[in-house]
């Protein structure tokens, strides 16, 4: 750094870098705002049956930047081979679960009280109704749940025969 020319070159390089950082910052903020204003559809990443409470717990991910609200649950119960229970439908169970943006939220689905505990092979087709703050429309999410993982493997083997 003996000559003023090298000083000026150094300063202009830092200036360019600073300008790049500023541009990146503002672009990033704008993009973040745009993305945050897009309502996304929730994704069920995991479903678990709680035997003691006789309920299915769904882990729902909201990948967007806006909160979604689950307002209604319905489900169709189809008994498997091991079950003595008859099939039944429960619909329009009002709930109010807010799915926070970018987070996983637990949603509980209580099965009909007094019915048999879920056996391997029982299927529950759940329908969740949700809304988002930008419109009055109602959206649905349908998730099929089959009790037990081993059963599906056995089915595959049967199909092979």
């Amino acid at each position, binding site marked *: *750094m003996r000559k*003023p020319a090298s000083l*000026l070159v150094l*300063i202009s390089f*830092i200036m360019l870098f*600073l300008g790049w950082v*500023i541009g990146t*910052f*503002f672009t990033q*903020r704008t993009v973040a705002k745009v993305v945050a204003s897009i309502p996304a559809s929730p994704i069920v990443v995991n479903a678990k049956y709680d035997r003691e409470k006789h309920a299915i717990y769904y882990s729902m991910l909201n990948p967007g930047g806006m909160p979604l609200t689950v307002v209604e649950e319905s489900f169709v119960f189809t008994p498997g081979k091991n079950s003595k229970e008859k099939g039944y439908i429960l619909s329009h169970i009002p709930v109010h679960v807010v799915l926070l943006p970018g987070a996983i939220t637990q949603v509980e689905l209580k099965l009909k009280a007094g019915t048999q505990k879920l056996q391997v092979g029982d299927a529950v087709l759940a329908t969740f109704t949700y809304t988002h703050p930008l419109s009055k429309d109602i959206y649905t999410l349908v998730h099929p749940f089959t009790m037990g993982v081993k059963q599906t493997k056995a089915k595959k083997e049967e199909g092979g025969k």
Partner: protein
Amino acid sequence: MKKIVWWITLILFTLIVILGTFFLSTLVAANPEAVAFLLGFLGFWLFANRLIFAFSQIANAASSVASGEVVEKEEIAKNLVKREEEVKLRNLTELSVAALLSMWRGALEPFKYAYYLAFFLLLLFSVLFELNIISSLVFGPIVEALTLGAAIPTLLVWGLELLSDYYLSKAVIESLKEISEEQEKK
């Protein structure tokens, strides 16, 4: 006549302030980061102004001294005192231009220190927000935008400081040479 001009000026000033407030408030609602950036830039420039102009004047005068041009001592001595009479009182014109310039540079040291301190504190906050040591979705981006706005005058101050140091050291060497040549003649 004077009163009319005064009233016109006052009305214009009030209009500008009202319009500016309106403009700023609409901008704040739409894009708070941009406003924070602007405020950081203008606010830090307000404090950097003295340093930026003084360092560039020092660099300018020192480079003319180094290349052997004549620089008026009174013009530079003015910047070292509050009233012009003090130049006579302190006998500043008897000093060489390079000595006056180095005194001026020394007088700027506390301002430089305070300025860099303020910038460092702001930078510290924005780094703490960036690393999520303290986190706030509202204040994080705003502090970062403030820092980015403040970085522009800070970089100018730093660059001009380096440049004025370079030219000042050249001017000091040049005037020391002149002094030793005069002593040899005697």
